[in-house]
């Protein structure tokens, strides 16, 4: 009996399960005992509230409508940021004149948190979609550029020697070494950008919006509805995680050599 228990405890999967349900139980207990006052809703209430939101409309939209609004903002801003930042990062790494021209300006903006742009964005673009997307573009831009840049910069220069010895020119070096070698770094840049994009969309929606998951959270706060707030938080975590899966899937598709890298040697 004890042996079985010991074995169960030692398997990682059972520990996952224990961790997950232990957390839920602890949460439930803290909420029901009102250790944090009335400001924590038990997990079941959160689930019920989320379920209710799928049938009831908040500001003209059900839960899926709000999820879609946030996700759409993230994707548009993220896509614009990546489309400009990745090629720019690659160009900077490949050409020192472009680098010398762009890097000083980029270095000024690099340490600036994207959220710092919110007010100016609203002044420039108003409180509608454009200002929110602008923030996300800014947030997604920096890690995309940095990772593409470093991805090329950190390539072992001997790989270029291989191409040159085999009869390739500079164009072949870029095509057959710089780009493929930078792919994994580009993808980790995209992952970081995506999570920053979610932070940005949330911040933008908290400041001013009429829809989206950030707006749901704000509504919950205004109405003193912890179940609504926590529900919004949980949904954001879930959706953000699903979007990162999308990027990982894309990476597996484009970088087949990264697959099964842990499978070991023959």
């Amino acid at each position, binding site marked *: 009996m004890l042996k079985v228990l010991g074995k169960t405890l030692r398997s990682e999967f059972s520990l996952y399960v224990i961790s997950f349900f232990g957390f839920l139980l602890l949460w439930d207990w803290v909420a029901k005992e009102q250790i944090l006052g009335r400001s924590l809703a038990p997990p079941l209430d959160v689930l019920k509230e989320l379920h209710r939101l799928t049938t009831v409309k908040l500001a003209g939209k059900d839960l899926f409508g709000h999820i879609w609004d946030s996700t759409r903002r993230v994707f548009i801003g993220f896509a614009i940021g990546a489309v400009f930042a990745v090629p720019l990062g690659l160009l900077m790494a490949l050409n020192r004149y472009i680098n010398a021209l762009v890097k000083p300006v980029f270095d000024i903006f690099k340490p600036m948190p994207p959220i710092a742009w919110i007010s100016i964005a609203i002044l420039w673009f108003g409180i509608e979609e454009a200002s929110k997307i602008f923030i996300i573009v800014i947030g997604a831009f920096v890690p995309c550029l940095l990772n593409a840049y470093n991805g090329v910069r950190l390539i*072992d220069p*001997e790989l270029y*020697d*291989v*191409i*040159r*010895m*085999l*009869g390739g020119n500079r164009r072949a070096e870029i095509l057959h070494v710089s780009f493929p070698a930078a792919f994994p770094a580009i993808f980790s840049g995209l992952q970081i950008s995506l999570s920053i994009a979610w932070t940005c969309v949330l911040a933008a929606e908290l400041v001013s919006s009429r829809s989206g998951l950030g707006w749901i959270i704000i509504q919950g706060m205004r109405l003193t509805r912890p179940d609504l707030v926590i529900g919004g938080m949980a949904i954001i975590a879930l959706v953000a995680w699903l979007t990162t899966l999308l990027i990982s899937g894309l990476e597996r598709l484009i970088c087949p050599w990264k697959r099964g890298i842990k499978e070991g*040697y023959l």
Partner: protein
Amino acid sequence: MKVHVLEDISLEVYDNEFVVILGPGQSGKTTLLRIIAGLETPTSGRVFLNGEEVQGPGPDRGLVFQSYMLFPWRTVLGNVEMGPRLRGVPKEERRKIAAHYLELVGLTGYEKYYPHQLSGGMKQRVGIARAYANNPEVMLLDEPFGQLDAQTRYYMEKETVRIWEQEKRTVIFVTNNIDEAIYLADRIITMEGKLPGRIKAVYPVNLPRPREHTDIAFLKLRQEIIEASKLLL
């Protein structure tokens, strides 16, 4: 900072000769090989191949790297056919070329593997096949087995002789391993153990192949080189 790496190097290598450059670390032997490859430009002096001056890297010389330098994003086949591909050889033909050299190095059947799925010895076989695939006149090998364990290294040395006898090329092979040098070379060039690197001595190796590490003549030559170098190689 400028460092004077090589001085007074005069070396002639003959057609299909297997020359081993033997020297300890920091003796400039890798720099010498890179100059022959055309990857480094010497501040003075010149390199000729068939009477023509070497002006830079090119497919008439095949280079095999100490750390393999395979393209991790290409399969074994993709790595081996890279040379012909860069020279514009059509797909059908370069597949044939790659298959031929993969067979030469004993990797038939591994075409679709990625480098990270291979052991060190197999990686270097790919490195050798890739350099061969351009049909170079000269093969340059820069401590190609330096990262292998002793067992695999010994085996790869045997394989090197087999491959070279099957597809003769002029070979310049750099190593810091005296046994490897005697096992492989037609001629051993030893380098001084400090910078600037100079050629210290030349030893023809007239032993029949395949050689035995325990052969009396092998050991005598080994002793002679060690004593002359006054260095533990």
